[in-house]
């Protein structure tokens, strides 16, 4: 088993890159690896619970909740979230909030770090 840390920065809506990031995490978990997941920049859109599914937009809250249930540590950049008005009470259950040093610390024990950039 290896440890994979994914740093995701793209927004939920606008490209399929964030969808890809979560699919990648699912694939790694299915292969028995441990995954740490950092959401920063516009990817902190995921730190707002109760997102409604429309067929015209990506909807990955359900997928994210399943990953949390499978033991994936998903942490959102607290400053990026607060700057966008996503507060602690908005955070989906199980998701953590931390400062950027959390992400860097996770790289220490990771075999691979996939930094998936923003727009």
């Amino acid at each position: 088993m290896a440890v994979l840390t994914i740093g995701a920065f793209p927004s939920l809506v606008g490209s399929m890159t964030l969808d890809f990031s979560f699919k990648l995490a699912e694939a790694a978990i299915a292969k028995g690896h441990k995954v740490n997941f950092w959401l920063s920049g516009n990817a902190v859109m995921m730190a707002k619970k109760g997102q409604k599914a429309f067929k015209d937009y990506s909807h990955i809250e359900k997928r994210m909740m399943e990953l949390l249930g499978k033991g994936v540590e998903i942490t959102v950049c607290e400053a990026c979230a607060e700057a966008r008005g996503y507060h602690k009470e908005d955070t989906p259950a199980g998701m953590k909030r931390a400062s950027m040093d959390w992400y860097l610390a996770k790289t220490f024990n990771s075999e691979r770090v996939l930094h998936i950039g923003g727009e």
Partner: protein
Amino acid sequence: MGATKLCFVVQRPPYKSENARLALTHSISSQTAEIHLEDGQSVVPTLIFVGDGVLNAVKNQNAMKLYGVTSTESHIKNGLLIDMPVWYCKEDMKRLGLTEDQVVMDAEDIGGELKAKLVSFEEIVKEMEACNHLLFF
């Protein structure tokens, strides 16, 4: 025990997107990563500007005056203040018509001692090869 070496490679210009700012804030946060690690463990960053990314280092930015936000110039100085190596790609500087006196090379005005370096792309590639993980912004 030990250190994990991280290369933060900034290829995007400032202000058009959040990428460059995030590279700067994330790399600077390496200073406090140890609170999440065991004794003796650390992450060691090198901040590298390539392509249009070198524009982040232009001196005399007016971000606070015009946008009400901190400048990438000030963040680079903060990086130097905490002794984080800051490198600029020499070839890209030349391509954009930038000279050493037009970019942030030190943080002496805020008490920093480390100086930024102008390096060739070949040296940057070597540094990237020596890193444990690459983070592209």
